[in-house]
């Protein structure tokens, strides 16, 4: 069989990109196949952006192990990839006396998992730390190692760095079948037939479908939808820690947190859904969300909501991450059921799988691996003199396109021209935040479309919000009847 690659990674979410980046340390021919028009377009694009401290998962599970490792790896990784990461700490609130035993149980679990610095605070101690906390909080578990990160930045930076180290990215390509050959796998996509020694299944909510193409062992993934509301930066400082609630009869898992970019985020809800493609928010969930989040803090500033969205988490029936070589399919590796704390665990899962694969294939470390990647300069955050100097070199940095976030044409052009660059409005938004501000792209949409059209040499009518079919325009005035 013809071998196009040593390893084919299926899925360009944070897990697929982390695996690809770790694999790219080795002398291997690697490609990553993503069905969306861009990386970071499934579960990775819509989640809480939390680096969990690691007290949630049951000791001994893959979740517990990967969470702790991932959290410990994050500072160095963030530095290498030049992305924002902040250990803002997290608080789990106990809103009634009856909840105290459960809070202590969570503490014990965290200690067993190896989480450092955990402390149980009284309600007043918690409120001194976080003045806007609800007066009903009777106690809280404080985890200083909890953190926040931008999931877009992490995923895209991993992809860019993997690409710079030789990984080939094939976006807009869907895997339709995999057949096991004597000496490897033959992967059928909607564009090509690809031969590879080894396959990594990182297909998120679709991982069970990919799994069934090669394995007889049971795997079933449920898409669990979570709705979120994003609030304006003017209330981004409403809390400084990530504030969770103790699971109770009223609900579980709704958090209030600042984001890595300084907004305030509330969410998620949890509803199992049939359709793994559609992710509509619902009135009932949004209303439940704001009501539940309002229990954590005083006077939740809901009038500052700038957008709502939802994401799907991949929940596997077994409840734990499934990571490793599939027992009945040699050289077929999987990272399935990666729900929370998946984002936190991504760096650890990437290393773990890449090590297994490298060992299996006997791949050597490359001498020329470059672990670092530079972010696109964020002009709005630079001191005047540095900004001046950059504009002098590239005048496009002086032309502001997105008013709300003060993003310049230079940054947008770079987002498009980079390896694994943006090809859609959403792609630009995720890389440089143009259109992510309070006007939600009202002013900059026409300009962003023009820049995409010019840089990609595509007519305006072909510019999409994201995937093909999401074109923004329906024609030109000259083409009208």
């Amino acid at each position, binding site marked *: 069989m013809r071998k196009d690659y040593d390893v084919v990674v299926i899925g360009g979410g944070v897990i697929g990109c982390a695996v690809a980046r770790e694999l790219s340390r080795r002398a291997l021919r690697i490609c990553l196949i993503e069905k969306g028009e861009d990386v970071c377009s499934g579960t990775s694009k819509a989640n809480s952006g939390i680096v969990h401290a690691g007290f949630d998962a049951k000791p001994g599970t893959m979740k517990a192990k990967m969470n702790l490792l991932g959290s410990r790896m994050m500072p160095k990784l963030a530095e290498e990839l030049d992305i924002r990461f902040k250990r803002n700490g997290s608080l789990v609130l106990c809103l009634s006396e009856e909840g105290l035993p459960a809070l202590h149980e969570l503490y014990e679990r965290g200690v067993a998992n190896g989480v450092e610095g955990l402390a149980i605070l009284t309600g007043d101690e918690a409120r001194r730390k976080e003045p806007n906390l609800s007066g009903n909080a009777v106690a809280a578990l404080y985890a200083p190692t909890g953190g926040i990160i931008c999931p877009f930045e992490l995923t895209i930076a991993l992809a860019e760095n993997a690409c710079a180290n030789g990984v080939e990215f094939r976006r807009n390509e869907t895997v339709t079948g995999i057949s096991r050959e004597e000496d490897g796998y033959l992967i059928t996509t909607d564009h090509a037939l690809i031969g590879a020694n080894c396959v990594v299944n990182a297909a998120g909510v679709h991982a069970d479908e990919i799994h069934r193409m090669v394995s007889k062992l049971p795997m079933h993934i449920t898409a669990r939808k979570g709705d979120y509301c994003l609030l304006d930066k003017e209330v981004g400082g409403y809390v400084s820690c990530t504030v969770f609630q103790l699971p109770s009869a009223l609900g579980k898992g709704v958090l209030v947190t600042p984001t890595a970019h300084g907004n305030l985020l509330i969410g998620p809800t949890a509803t199992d859904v049939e359709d793994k493609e559609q992710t509509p928010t619902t009135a009932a969930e949004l209303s439940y969300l704001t009501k539940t989040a309002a229990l954590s803090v005083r006077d939740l500033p809901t009038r500052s909501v700038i957008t709502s969205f939802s994401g799907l988490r991949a929940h596997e029936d077994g409840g734990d991450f499934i990571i490793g070589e599939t027992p009945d399919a040699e050289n077929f590796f999987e990272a399935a059921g990666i729900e929370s704390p998946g984002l936190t665990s991504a760096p650890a899962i990437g290393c773990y799988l890449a090590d297994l694969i490298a060992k299996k294939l006997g791949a050597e470390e490359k001498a020329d691996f470059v672990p670092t990647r530079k972010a696109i300069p964020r002009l709005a955050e630079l001191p005047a003199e540095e900004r001046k100097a950059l504009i002098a070199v590239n005048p496009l940095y002086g032309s502001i396109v997105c008013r709300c976030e003060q993003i310049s044409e230079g940054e947008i052009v770079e987002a498009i021209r980079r390896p694994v660059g943006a090809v859609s409005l959403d792609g630009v938004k995720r890389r440089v935040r143009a259109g992510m501000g309070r006007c939600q792209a009202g002013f900059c949409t026409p300009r962003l479309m023009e820049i995409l059209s010019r840089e990609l040499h595509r007519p305006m009518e072909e510019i999409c919000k994201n995937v093909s079919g999401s074109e923004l325009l329906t024609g030109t*005035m*000259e083409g009208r*009847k």
Partner: protein
Amino acid sequence: MRELTCIGCPLGCSLRVFEEDGNLRVEGNTCPRGETYAKNEVLCPKRTVTSTVAIRGGAVSRLSVRTQTDIPKDKIAACMEEIKRVCVHAPAAIGDVILPDVAGTGVALIATKNVPKA
């Protein structure tokens, strides 16, 4: 009988216009402006049409235009058909006549924007 909403002021009176022996009688108005408006709307309703036409050789690709004065309402569709076929060349200046007689109304279509040569 025809029912109309007066646009003379925010009051928005509901007007009823009756035809009696070749004369028009207006009900529901609270001021004389309502009566005038209703009669005009029934006898010969008119509107200004605004749109854009293609322009070549300028910094922009569309030139905004309007009918110089109101045209009969029933000519709007014909006017749009003519507008869609027009393509002019830069420069263009406000007031330039784009079509001298749009849709046989005797009214000119004029430019409403200055577009210098690129």
